[in-house]
């Protein structure tokens, strides 16, 4: 399970040491980038917020334990407790001055990644107003390079080739895409006016480390599989302990080949699947781009080959020893309406549908050229990679055991935890 690449020490040449501000430091990509920058010998200010009784510092400490960052490296990192949605990022005066006076480059990863229109206000507040707050803080400062972690999906509702450049978009699938698109424009205008070099990094869908499977986030690719795994365990227990009373009600049973039969049909649509990049590739690509392109630009960090949903279903069946889950033609659902499990999937597919059945092609000639020059290659999403990632996910109970690893004594405290305190005001 433990990958050799896990331990992060200062092993890289400490040339041109710079000071970075990384926002979204407790997030999946933000933490990976921050740790890599530290490993390169840079100094990092990490913007993070406290949550549920945990201070920002405590959360970051737990993360650094997860990355196995040594003490020397840790001394190069300083946590700034802040909130994107607040003026001056909610930073104290000293921290504002530190950002203005010392930060050379910004890596802006903080983002509300919800797709839900219900959360529109929140998403806008973080992704748009938060960015504006950040730009306001750094306007006066010495920062000369701004890395905006955007997404390939700012392309919106189009099909065919999506250019590796700013472009016009007429419609979006969701509020996330829309705000990420608007954020690019805001950043571009601001950087243009203030002589700051802008890098717009547009990854597609990022999953765990392709070699070790390690990840901090179990959404996107992981979520539907996690759902299946949840029901697999639920019904298996029911079959083993309660004669399968509940399983029968759902048409679930143990098949003769030892697999669990879960009746889940996934509606097929003509499209070419999902674009997946492992986090190690994303980080490597980011570093390569930063190094090779002092003039900045727009960069598609994507996989040149999509993974078909059909392929994913095969992987899932094989890894999880499941049967019953299959691709079905739309008219099948007319004859036999969706069952409860399928409805859960339908919801997920409605949300992620545009990414799972993606016919968009992300042109990436500029990025590809840079990466080729540095031997950075995005691996295919093979069964082995899938299995490695799923093994880690299952071992970590889809994030719930993330910090029990290696005796950090942080059982069940997920960084992504969103529980809220009980007595809160409600109406009005």
């Amino acid at each position, binding site marked *: 399970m433990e990958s050799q690449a896990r331990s992060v020490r200062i092993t890289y040449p400490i040339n041109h040491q710079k000071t970075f501000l990384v926002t979204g430091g407790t997030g999946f990509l933000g933490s990976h980038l921050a740790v890599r920058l530290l490993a390169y010998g840079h100094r990092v200010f990490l913007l993070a917020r406290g949550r549920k009784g945990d201070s920002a510092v405590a959360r970051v400490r737990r993360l650094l334990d997860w990355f196995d960052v040594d003490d020397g490296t840790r001394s190069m990192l300083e946590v700034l407790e802040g909130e994107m949605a607040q003026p001056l990022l909610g930073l104290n005066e000293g921290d504002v001055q530190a950002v203005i006076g010392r930060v050379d480059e910004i890596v802006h990863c903080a983002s509300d990644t919800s797709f839900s229109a219900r959360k529109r206000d929140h998403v806008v507040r973080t992704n748009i107003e938060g960015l504006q707050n950040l730009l306001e803080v750094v306007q006066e400062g010495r920062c000369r390079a701004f890395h905006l972690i955007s997404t390939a999906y700012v392309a919106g509702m189009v099909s065919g080739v999506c250019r590796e450049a700013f472009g016009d978009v007429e419609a979006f699938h969701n509020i996330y895409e829309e705000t990420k698109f608007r954020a690019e424009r805001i950043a571009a205008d601001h950087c243009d006016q203030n002589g700051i070099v802008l890098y717009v990094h547009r990854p597609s869908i990022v999953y765990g480390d392709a070699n070790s499977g390690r990840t901090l986030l179990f959404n996107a690719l992981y*979520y539907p599989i996690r759902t299946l795994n949840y*029901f697999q365990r639920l019904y298996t227990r029911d079959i083993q302990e309660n004669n399968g009373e509940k399983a029968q*009600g759902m048409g679930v049973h143990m098949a003769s080949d030892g697999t669990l039969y879960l009746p889940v049909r996934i509606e097929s649509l003509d499209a070419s699947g999902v674009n997946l990049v492992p986090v190690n590739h994303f980080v490597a690509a980011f570093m390569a781009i930063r190094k090779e392109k002092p003039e900045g630009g727009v960069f598609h960090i994507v996989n040149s080959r999509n993974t078909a949903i059909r392929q994913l279903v095969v992987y899932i069946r094989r890894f999880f020893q499941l049967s019953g889950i299959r691709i079905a033609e739309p008219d099948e659902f007319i004859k036999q309406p969706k069952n*409860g499990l399928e409805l859960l999937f339908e919801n997920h597919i409605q949300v992620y549908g545009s990414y799972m059945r993606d016919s968009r092609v992300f042109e990436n000639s500029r990025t590809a050229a840079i990466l080729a020059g540095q031997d950075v290659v995005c691996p295919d999403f093979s069964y082995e990679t899938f299995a490695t990632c799923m093994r880690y996910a299952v071992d970590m109970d889809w994030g719930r055991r993330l910090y029990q690893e290696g005796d950090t004594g942080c059982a069940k405290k997920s960084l992504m935890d969103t529980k*809220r305190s*009980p007595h809160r*005001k*409600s*109406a*009005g």
Partner: protein
Amino acid sequence: MFSEQTRQMAAQCRHYAMCKIDYLGTGICASGMENHYVSHFPQGRMDIYDALARELIPITRGLAEIVDSCDLCGICDKQCHFVTGMRPLEVMKGLKQHLKEWIDQGNDIIPVESDPELDALREIVGWRWATNDPAVLVTYANDPFPLAEMRMPRYVALPGTRDEVAALVRFANARGIPYVVRGNGGSVFGFVFSDGLVMDMHRMKGIEIDAENWVVLVEPGVTSFELQQAVVKRGFRVNTAEPAATVCGNIVCTGLFSTWANAYGVNADSFVDMEFVDNKGDIFRLNAPAAPNAFCFEHKLTPAPGICIRAHVRLHPVTGDEEGWFVPFASFEEAAAFAREMSQRRIGLAIGVLGGHYLSTFMSPSAALADNVRFSLTEAIGLDYVVFMIGDRFAREAVNAMQEVVIDQDLFRMFMLGLPRLADDEWLDLVSGMDGDRPPYEILLQREMRPVLDAVLQPSPETAARQVDEDLREFYTKLYARPEMTDMVWLNMFRILSARMSRRKHMFAFLVYVPMDRVDVIEQICTALGRIADDYGIDNDYGFLTPLDMGKRGILEYDYYIDHQDPAEKEKIRKAAVVFEPFLDNLSATTKGVKWLKYIFSQGCARKEAFLYT
């Protein structure tokens, strides 16, 4: 020796009098039912323990008798745990232990001398039913209301008849003794205290059903719970609110509002007639031509028309096809609008807009579970508000035709019996991850999801009982196996869950009549009360909203929560009062349809039209 931990628990008694009704079918404290004084119920014993530990009262003969009369049967543990999570048996044991040690140490039990006034009182009500023993008096001396101090009466008397009530009034007047009448003291607003005489109505428990006239005659010691039980047996229903409240006291004090108010009204809508003893000791009926006009309303603090000695309460018909359901909403505005529409269209009987706090707290047998359930319902599945309804088959069909998602009785039972699993971390993580434009509850509550939910929740009495103390699990398992414990109609008629709202801390409730077509005003009230509480560091939450009078008006509850034993918390309320009083006074005076219940206290006989439309 007193244990400070036990004393603290004793002092936390909320005085909601739930231990005076048999709401779980366990029976009631036998000593209480035999002796009738509050002091002989668990509630009184909690006060006595606290008072003894703080050396406020001596060990008197009365006290010894109270302590001896407890047989440690443990009913109080079950009853109290159900609503507060507390286990008062510890207190009862502590009292016995203390008394034994006291006697073993050779101390004397102090006899309490009578005096001429007490003799005269005993002359009226019988020797047993009047006392000046401090152990009894102390249980009539305070409640958790944060803005009043302890007030020991000189006497407590329990009249058994209307004539005795009248005689007590005349006697008190003649001797210049101030007096107050007490139902079950559940108003918890510092109303039932006096330096003189407290008349406790507990012995007057007469209920007489006059079916042809659709009326039931109720004496002032009868609680809502007892009345509902009696009339349900005959196929009727009465408008009831808090189960331990006396019906007469409730009508006079607050005008008796509840979610049933949508169909049954409030104030004068609840009764056909009322009989009173006035402040001279004369008996009158409200319907008598020469009676004082208690149907009118004055916008000022006004005393009650007298002591109600009998209420002629309206009986309501029940159809065999009634059931309860929830219609979920992601916003208060939508929920309030829907509730109003139901009332306007006369669909349904009981209607209320509930938020996450009431919903999770009422449903959960423990405070910790309630917190998790609240998170589960609101944050995870996006169900912030529900419109709760009771109605017949036609009402249900109408609602089904109007709303895609409805939590019906079966689903509610599934939730109640599977509650611990609804709040299970793993399931919550999964549900929290459901991103989409529709709130997750819209998917989860679809009919096709039932078998899935059934597998996830594993609903059963055993599952439901999983979250309580181990030694109570068997009891809870049996309790949850009883169909009424998960039956929305029964639960709302007998209202045995509502006192759970104060499980963490005592509540300080704001009740405001509001114009139902002005959701902006309703939201403004909630926001302002919330902000004021936040400014003073007071826990607070939305309570409920019920439409009235075909959706024209409504009644809103917003609650503050305080530890009534913490002087700092009382101080917070005192300071906040300087802000919320003028806010609500001003709003009541300037906005049509807004009326703070403060002005209706003791004017519960007034016609609602007299204060809702002026």
